[in-house]
């Protein structure tokens, strides 16, 4: 049994969903982690929080590995005497491989490494995407880093005011909807910007995320300063025979995603034609037609009939900027900025764009001002000017309704300088 009585946490061992409490207890019992008391004391301090309904972690301190400004989150317990095993309990963010495929070999190496240098507890994975090693002491940081780079050929992820660990959907590796190689893009962009990732020089954090299609399986539009979302600009490919098979009931709509409930016979009109947001589809009982010019590539029809409809062949991505959580000015989603860009390695066009964005943000951004907030403060048009893009109605849901236009002097014939005396010759006081 563990060191501490944890009657409340024990309640969380009940119920069918995997119990993290049971798992930690299993680590307590069989674990070979070097920080012997850590899992046990974690349960102890957590139980104390369950009683107090307040966290017992102190405000993070600054710890790290030499030469890096990020990758480690310092953490100290406010009850170190009672819970010495977690008195120091820093996390280590390890940069996950694109879309998180692993060999058991590599995973075991990670486990061994963490047994040697920490608590034996992890997050698989953190919200940004990192492999998170949960809890170690300062003295373990350098050896861990050394072993990881030397033995595992593996680097840390980001934290602080820098580029954060980029993340992507699984894309072309196992998905028929992938419009570009989100994994390769994620990997190459991560490696191209190692300096930015490890050495904080930005006004605040910056995140890249790569969704290979508008379904958005890595949620880039909501949680990355730059969201790269796959799309195409030619026609959806239609297999008319397969459409008929869906209509005839031989194929399951939406690949069977609704099959635990009886929704009745598939009705292509109700389920596809009428739900298309632009009403650009037509089914005459034997042939499906799509007016591709009006399609906004929402993915619905492809999702419903994946064997009949396939993405176009002239593929690339839309680039959106500015998503973030609520701090300070409220949450934002990313705003469509580049409707279409070809996405081929080495992604030079994308890099050029990013660097323009960063130059501006580093020049103009205030301390702790995310890109999205800077764009709001400085205006979308200012942003477009610095990244040298022409304004496009696709960037807005609708044109402005207020007439408060900031005209520039050079746009107005004769400029702004006028002589009141000249005016007064025609318009006496």
């Amino acid at each position: 049994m563990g060191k501490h009585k944890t009657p409340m946490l024990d309640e969380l061992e009940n119920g069918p969903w995997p119990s993290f409490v049971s798992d930690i207890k299993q680590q307590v019992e069989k674990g070979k982690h070097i920080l012997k008391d850590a899992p046990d004391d974690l349960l102890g301090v957590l139980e104390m929080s369950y009683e107090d309904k307040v966290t017992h972690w102190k405000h993070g301190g600054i710890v790290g590995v030499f030469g890096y400004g990020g990758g480690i989150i310092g953490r100290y317990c406010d009850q170190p005497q009672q819970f010495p095993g977690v008195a120091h309990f820093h996390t280590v963010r390890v940069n996950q491989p694109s879309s998180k495929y692993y060999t058991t070999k590599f995973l075991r190496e990670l486990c061994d490494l963490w047994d040697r240098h920490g608590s034996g507890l992890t997050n698989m994975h953190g919200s940004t995407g990192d492999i998170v090693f949960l809890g170690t002491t300062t003295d373990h940081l350098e050896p861990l880093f050394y072993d990881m780079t030397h033995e595992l050929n593996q680097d840390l992820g980001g934290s602080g005011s820098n580029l954060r660990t980029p993340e992507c959907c699984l894309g072309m590796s196992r998905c028929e909807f992938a419009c570009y190689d989100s994994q390769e893009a994620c990997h190459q962009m991560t490696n191209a910007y190692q300096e930015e990732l490890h050495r904080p020089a930005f006004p605040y954090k910056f995140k890249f995320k790569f969704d290979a299609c508008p379904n958005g399986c890595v949620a880039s539009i909501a949680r990355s300063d730059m969201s790269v979302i796959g799309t195409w600009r030619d026609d959806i490919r239609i297999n008319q025979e397969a459409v008929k098979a869906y209509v005839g009931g031989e194929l399951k709509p939406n690949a069977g995603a609704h099959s635990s409930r009886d929704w009745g016979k598939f009705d292509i009109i109700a389920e596809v034609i009428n739900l298309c947001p632009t009403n650009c589809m037509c089914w005459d009982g034997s042939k499906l037609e799509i007016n591709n010019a009006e399609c906004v590539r929402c993915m619905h029809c492809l999702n419903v009939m994946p064997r009949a409809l396939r993405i176009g062949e002239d593929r690339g991505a839309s680039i959106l900027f500015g998503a973030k959580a609520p701090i300070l000015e409220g949450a934002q989603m990313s705003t469509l900025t580049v409707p279409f860009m070809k996405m081929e390695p080495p992604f030079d066009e994308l890099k050029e764009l990013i660097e323009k964005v960063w130059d501006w943000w580093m020049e103009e951004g205030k301390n702790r001002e995310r890109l999205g907030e800077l764009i709001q403060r400085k205006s979308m048009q200012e942003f477009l000017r610095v990244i040298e893009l022409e304004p496009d109605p696709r960037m807005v849901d609708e044109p402005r309704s207020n007439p408060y236009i900031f005209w520039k002097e050079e746009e107005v014939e004769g400029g702004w300088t006028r002589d009141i005396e000249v005016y007064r010759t025609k318009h006496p006081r």
Partner: protein
Amino acid sequence: MPYDPSNPLQDRITDIGPRYFREFFPPVIEKNFGKWEYHEILEPGVLVHVAEGGDEVYTVRVGGCRLMSVEHLREICEIADKYCDGYLRFTTRNNIEFLVSDKSKVKPLIDDLKGRKFAAGSYKFPIGGTGSGITNIVHTQGWAHCHTPAIDASGVVKAVMDGLFEEFGSMNMPAPVRVSLACCLNMCGAVHCSDIAILGIHRKPPMIDGEWIDKLCELPLAIAACPTAAIKPAKSAGGLKSLEVNGERCMFCGNCYTMCAAMPLADEVGSGIAILVGGKLSNRISKPKFSKVVIPFIPNEPPRWGSTVAAVKNIVDVYAKDARKYERLGDWAERIGWERFFEKTQIPFTHHLIDDYRFAYTTWRQSTQFKF
């Protein structure tokens, strides 16, 4: 050469980035990269993807609880070795996927997974999380590691997922329902665009640790951090430089505490949970949208957060019964009208739910269109 503490910079390797992902691809994935033609969900949690040339890969998805021990990871490896030639992956929502190219191994794998339980009885590897069901809850640290939480994370998630266990293992929703949790307003996750978001919030203004604040914090930074200008300079009782918070102007965002350790907000009764609903991320049919606050506060109820679990279940149940096929929760609420949402879910509509922040006006109703 091993690490030498007396010469820490020797042989230093930096800026190598992550491992190249293609090293970790199972052969069938490597071979058919970019050539997948279609997929099918054979049963909840079990997918097959078929490539142009006819190759197939079967995926069995199981719930992960994210806060995971290396012992548990080793058990995962053992399974992957046994059925999957030593390959596996994790999803963007912290599930684990076992990939099998040999169809005959699928059934044994599933049976094996179903049989594994923790000592106290919970499943180690529940199968599900696909299609129009409810997949895993993305979440954050909570009381297990963070300094700013208003609530725990893993515990709430465990309790809620126990409540949604059936929905995880089946596909009986009108559309996917994505539940997320963040333990404070920093919202480490896509909570702001989730079908259902469980959000930790504080309701008491920060205390000022007058004795320490001048030592611990740069006071001007803390003042500047406040979005509502609720903080101003002051002197402590002992005459030290300090700060003062105007509670009337505070909206409990915690940003001051992020900047200054001497301004803690968390409180036994002040902190708790807000429920937001109706957000989405995909561009499918409708555009992505923000989640909206529908329950402003539920007290912290460790260990099993009964009221929160009940609130989530209630919303899920009403939605599942009332919405149309393919209709996400937010699209449903908009179609029936938010007045009907509150009526059908029997959630009281309180003044807290009316926006009074920057874009407030754009959310008020400028129309006579409403339902009695």
